[in-house]
């Protein structure tokens, strides 16, 4: 395993959601599941983050925010759409201001289904995401060399 996969720092952004998935994200960091044992840190700063966790759907107001957070993250980075809202818009899909899932504005690497997601599914996504981080790092190196 490369160094990236041992220290994935996440940033969590909540779009247009019911908050259910956000609570699950936090639950995954709490003592019972304790994501920090894999080196995960929940940071508030995009410039320190490796994984962007997006919950909730994209609407007119937050699309520039999501784009901005994504752009501020240093490469290599991975985006995980958490919950069905972030995947496709979910139950908010028909709303007049909702554009759809997170992939409307940023390239999403993983979709975690569920309404709300289970912490186990989230941990699964985190493990998959760190593997991809290493791959992206290698691609980045190869590109430079």
């Amino acid at each position, binding site marked *: 395993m490369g160094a990236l996969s041992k220290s994935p720092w996440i940033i969590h952004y909540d779009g247009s959601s019911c908050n259910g998935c956000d609570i699950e994200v936090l639950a995954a960091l709490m003592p019972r599941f*304790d994501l*920090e044992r894999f080196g995960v*840190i*929940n940071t508030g*700063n995009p410039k320190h983050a490796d994984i962007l966790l997006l919950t909730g759907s994209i609407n007119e107001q937050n699309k520039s925010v999501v784009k901005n957070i994504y752009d501020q993250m240093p490469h290599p980075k991975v985006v995980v759409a958490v919950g069905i809202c972030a995947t496709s818009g979910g139950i908010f899909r028909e709303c007049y201001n909702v554009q759809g899932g997170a992939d409307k504005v940023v390239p999403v690497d993983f979709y975690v289904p569920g309404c709300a997601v289970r912490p186990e599914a989230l941990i699964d996504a985190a493990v998959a995401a760190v593997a991809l981080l290493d791959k992206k790092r290698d691609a980045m190196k190869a590109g430079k060399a």
Partner: protein
Amino acid sequence: MWWLGGLLFIVLAPFVGGLLSGIDRKITARMQGRIGPPVWQAFYDVAKLLQKENLVVRPTQKMYMDFFLVFTIFTGVLFFSGGDLLLVIFALTMAGVFFVLGGYKASSPYSFIGAQRETLQMMSYEPAVLIAAVGIYMVTRSFQVAQIVHHPTLIIKDLPGVFFAFFFILTIKFRKSPFDLSTSHHAHQELVKGITTEFSGRTLAKIEIAHWYEYVFILGFVYLFFASNPVLGVAMALLAFFCELVIDNISARVRWQWLLAASWGVAFVAGGANILYLMLKG
């Protein structure tokens, strides 16, 4: 062989400091009922940061952090090679100044507030550090660390108040609650990441390594108070570190006014009274 201590510091301090910071996270996790990351986590973090892209607002902001690292190492080298205690304190301040300048240079509102708060923190701990140097001089009649460590009696016996004042400001230097105003050890906080907000990749790794060097230097300073008994000295340094973890986990961040008043209050009351007593005793 005066240079040996300095050389050992340059080579070994990052390992000791990194390990301490890993142990810190492990113990903190256990206190919170979590399993916590492996003790090597701090090294994994830095190894990762070295591989990340280095985003900067202005290219020069990196330079300030290079100086921060260099001066932090210089501080420790001076100290561990038995140099002049006053010079050590000047070097420490110099390192702090570069850290603050780096925060200002990045010119984001978050790092700006972080830099301002860091300045306040420096202002808060400086009196206690100076009083510690003065107190140690009054007991040992020397500012040379090489001579201070060979002082025959336990220095703390004559300087309990000064040591208390110094212990009080350790929390600031370790960047622990309740005094982690400028940037926190913990990732999530209301100021995003304070002074380090605009730093990423390699530069952030350098900041992290500078903190490891700082850890070892500070614990070395604690050791100085118990230098006549090396075993006790090391034990007390580690105990002080553990106390910081406990304090970190049971307290919330305070306002800067409180920080300044408390650290100056303790420095001038406990430290000052101690110095006064030594003077009167002659």
